[in-house]
């Protein structure tokens, strides 16, 4: 395929542009529509994080451990969300004496930024898709891994030994798991033949097998389940959840790189964690589960897409309640000696599958 110079389609901004007739305004119109579209998507994410963070996580954990949680705050305890928001924002921001500013202030912003920015190329279905560049998948991976930089800066700038250890652990962990993640992601490209997100979704929307009335879609998870499991494991480590939550490792290194963050900075760090889980879920849904394509009518694409993202979030919470944490050396060992080797084996396997069945 010949690379085009400006192949970037912008489905959602274009739709907004058509709706309000802003197409005539040229570059300014593009900027306005892009901004409005980004604002909409960011808000969807923030609302999701608001539900997941102060409310969903507690409810889920309570359900896993046979308890009730949040019974006093409105219907199903939902008012805990504004309550927690006010509480967290009205707390004093404690700035420890030795922190290295402005690095210390930038770190949480980088973390949140990288998570939200990654969604720019994710097709969410029902026409909600900010940008669709040719290199969409590469862009998503590149942006998502920026958060490691944020963690490293946070660990270093906090002037706290626990934070330093957390930052170093985060760096080691992300390097070790980024490579298997991307190599496994590359196997999807063998299958779809494109890095463009819309193309990846389109390929998976086709029918793989027709079993009487039921048509199994050609989701890559069905084509190569092995790759899916690998990606899931590496993704779990990327977002730093059990059994791979060593960069934070409460009870070992207190809270790792986020130890010294309080008040609104804590909110940012925490928010970025949830957004990263969503982003990992979104990438996984796009690459392996057909993104917004299916299992139902395409018009409800956003529903299917969000359901898949939330399913991944629930999985992380389930693991969190039940899975022991591996030790840092075991983690690195699993990454370099296990997943890396397997991910390359998977690349060959996928090449075989694609070569034989989809040539």
């Amino acid at each position: 395929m010949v690379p085009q110079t400006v192949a970037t389609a912008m489905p959602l901004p274009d739709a907004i542009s058509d709706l309000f007739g802003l197409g005539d305004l040229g570059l300014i119109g593009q900027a306005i529509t892009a901004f409005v579209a980004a604002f909409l998507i960011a808000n969807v994410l923030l609302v999701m994080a608001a539900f997941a963070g102060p409310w969903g996580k507690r409810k889920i954990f309570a359900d896993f451990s046979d308890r009730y949680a949040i019974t006093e705050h409105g219907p199903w305890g939902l008012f805990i969300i504004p309550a927690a928001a006010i509480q967290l924002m009205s707390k004093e921001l404690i700035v420890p004496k030795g922190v290295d500013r402005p690095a210390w202030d930038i770190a949480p912003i980088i973390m949140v930024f990288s998570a939200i920015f990654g969604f720019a190329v994710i097709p969410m279905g029902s026409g909600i898709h900010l940008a669709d560049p040719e290199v969409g998948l590469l862009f998503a991976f590149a942006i998502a891994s920026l958060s490691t930089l944020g963690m490293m800066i946070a660990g270093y700038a906090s002037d706290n030994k626990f934070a330093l250890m957390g930052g170093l652990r985060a760096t080691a962990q992300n390097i070790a798991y980024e490579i298997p993640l991307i190599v496994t992601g590359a196997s999807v490209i063998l299958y779809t033949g494109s890095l463009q997100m819309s193309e990846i979704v389109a390929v998976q929307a086709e029918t793989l097998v027709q079993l009487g009335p039921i048509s199994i879609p050609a989701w890559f998870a069905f084509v190569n389940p092995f790759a899916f499991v690998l990606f899931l494991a590496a993704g779990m480590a990327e977002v730093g959840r059990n059994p791979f939550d060593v960069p934070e490792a409460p009870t070992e290194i207190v809270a790792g790189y986020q130890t010294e963050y309080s008040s609104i900075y804590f909110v940012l760090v925490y928010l970025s964690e949830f957004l990263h889980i969503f982003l990992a879920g979104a990438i996984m849904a796009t690459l392996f589960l057909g993104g917004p394509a299916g299992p139902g009518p395409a018009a409800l694409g956003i529903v299917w897409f969000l359901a898949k993202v939330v399913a991944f979030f629930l999985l992380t919470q389930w693991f969190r309640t039940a899975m022991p944490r591996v030790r840092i050396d075991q983690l690195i060992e699993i990454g370099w000696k296990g997943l890396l080797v397997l991910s390359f084996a998977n690349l060959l396997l996928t090449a075989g599958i694609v070569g034989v069945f989809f040539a």
Partner: protein
Amino acid sequence: MSLEAPHEDPLARTDDRESLESILGDHAIGWEEHVNAQGVVIRPDEVQSSLRALRDEGGFDHLSSVTAQEYADRYESIYHLSKYDDRTQEVSVVVPTAKEEPVSQSADAVYRTADWHEREAYDLVGIEYEDHPDLRRILLPETWQGHPLGLDYDQDKPQLVSLSEHANPIAEHHHDEEGETMFLNIGPHHPATHGVLHLKTVLDGETVVDVDPDIGYLHRCEEQMCQQGTYRHQIMPYPDRWDYVSAGLLNEWSYARAIEDMADIEVPEYAQVVRTMGAELCRIAAHLISIGAFALDVVGDFTVTFQYAWQDREDVLNILEDLTGQRMMFNYFRLGGVVWDLPEPREDFFESIRTFLDSFEGSVDEYHDLLTNNEIFQRRCIGTGHLDAETAKSYGCTGPVARGSGIDYDLRRDDPYGYYEELDWDVAVQDEGDNYARMLVRMQELEESAKIVDQCVDILEDWDEDDREIQSNVPRTLKPDADAEVYRAVEGAKGELGIYIRSDGSDKPARFKIRSPCFSNLQVLGEAANGEYVADLIATLGSIDVILGEVDR
């Protein structure tokens, strides 16, 4: 017995005066009769040679406790020796030192556990130990003036304590070497220290090079307070506050046993069964917390195991509340029995225990599923925090820590008290000595304790209605004979919980010393965790299972 190789048969009795005379020879300069054991007086500059003879020739491999006290004319250190293979053999080695110059030889070279015990004696009483590797204060701040359990100490004088920044103690050793170390304060406020414990840790990367537990943050002068209370009623509430995580009745039993032996008080059989049942319920509750907290250390702060264990403990506490009227600070034992009989209607009470025991089997299986059968858990715990039997013995480890290192030692069986002898149960022992073995021991003990409770319920159900004597006759004001001394221990939740009491003929003890199992067990942390990853240090601390209320007293 033959003196050439007496330790080949550890069960041969060497605790009578005749054998002690032949072992110690000229070292013995006097003899005392303690209620629990033969007391032998030795010179302060012959401590090491005397104890070494007792250990190597007499087979006394267990230094249970070191008691220090001040008399009007002298200071005295008492080394309470015993044997891991036969706990009924005891000897008290009394080391008097002069009032003007209270210097005595340290026993650290013979028994490693003497290290902390002698530091405590120095801290609280003021005896100085020669040859001690590290004679610093242990419970009180380093700048404290005076020794609070000494006779001339002014208790009303307030003291200001200054604190200095902690420094890397081995920084100079690593100068110019390729690795640089980092000093890390883990605690006193840290999610994993299970209370206010401060670990002065030196790390090389993620590896622990040196760890020095700094204790005393929860020191509440428990010994002093017990010395100010009357035997009959005023001391019994305190034991609940030592190992406060549900082990209350086990602790109360230690005081009850010591004073009952000392003052020759009989306990009715019925009361013994009730005591045994209550104590084992406490052990279940305490072990549940231990397992749940260990899951926190290894799994993380959102583990369900902790919540499940906490829920099961609630069920136990409900039963204990019905029995004693309290959920934590029971104050249920009395000298010569218990305070009141089982709650009426008895059938409902027994029913509630049986309901719990039935569901408890499933709970233990679930803990095995969540923890011990989990592959990641096994990778984390098998082979980490290793503690071999010899080291454990030298440090005076007892309880699940010792039993996890293959030491078959349980006071309930080896020095029987209560109703344990009549019941059918086993001592859980694992040989591996790692974190996993200690966890397995606790899991098995949950089941064994449940078995004991079950049998007690059967016995109590069939007990003759007219013969339910819950307390024997005890004088309203109890005054044991002057100068009577006793050291008695029971199997607490964490190990051997011993009490030393010396009477001066009044209704209050002249010296009340608590031998805390956690205190001795915590000492071994460095041995088990040095050279391992910091994550394993936390896991090892969790599996050693200390309650700071009992460490600091």
